[in-house]
């Protein structure tokens, strides 16, 4: 009888401890590599990496806004799904220009990125050919 109780206790412990992976304290981070114009400014390709000490799935929202030399505004936003495993991934998000605005051109622009589990990025970038 005592053996049975011991076995039952061991089983309860096994079930309680085994399948729940601990949530790592380390955080997901975004690294921006570059922003290039595509299709004569109809879109901007945003190259970035995500490092994830713990596996993460979620969305990356990328927004680019530019005030052109002629004063017109070009802007766009894209939401991409990603799945980050084994430490990190590389990604390209294509931000298409809004039909209400102008095409993107070479030069300064404002980039905002929201990635699941990571601190948001909001910085000036250079759009290149």
């Amino acid at each position, binding site marked *: 009888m005592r053996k049975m109780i011991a076995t039952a206790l061991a089983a309860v412990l096994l079930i309680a401890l*085994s*399948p729940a992976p601990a949530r790592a304290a380390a955080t997901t981070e975004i690294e921006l590599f570059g922003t290039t114009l595509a*299709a*004569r400014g109809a879109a901007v390709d945003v190259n970035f990496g995500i490092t994830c000490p713990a596996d993460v799935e979620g969305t990356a929202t990328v927004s680019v806004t530019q005030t052109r030399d002629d004063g017109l505004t070009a802007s766009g936003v894209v939401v991409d799904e990603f799945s980050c495993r084994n430490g990190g991934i590389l990604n390209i998000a294509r931000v298409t220009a809004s*039909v209400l*605005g102008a095409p993107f051109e070479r030069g300064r622009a404002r980039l905002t990125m929201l990635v699941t589990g990571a601190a948001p990025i909001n910085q000036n970038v250079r759009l290149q050919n």
Partner: protein
Amino acid sequence: MRRFTAFLAVLTALIIGSVLLLAPGAQADTGPSTTRVVTADRAAQGERVVVTLSATCPAGATIKVVVTVTAANDNRIAQGARQKKVDCAGTAQPIELRVEHNPIGAIFIVGAATATTVRTVCDDSGCDTISFDETIRIS
């Protein structure tokens, strides 16, 4: 002793069951599929672009494609979208879509453009949705 063995067997079954139940639910697996823009021809004085896709998806499934074409026209943007649903043949099949321009924007002109194709492939097991961007040429 026999009772103990039975108890152990039940225990093992319970543990295996819990592990199986807790395994992450896999997404619907509808099999491999692709889409690619083959041609994009300007039509109706730029009011429209006729896009031909080459699509592959497993026979027996259905594929819905939503194609959005965006292009620069001087200092304005030309954009249009169109969707179509067809049955999969199991081999590469052409899908033609007549993409009308959004009247808020400019008309299409010949040259580089970007195309976003969102495909939803469905079969008995469920649906998979995949988005694909490519640079194309309107001619």
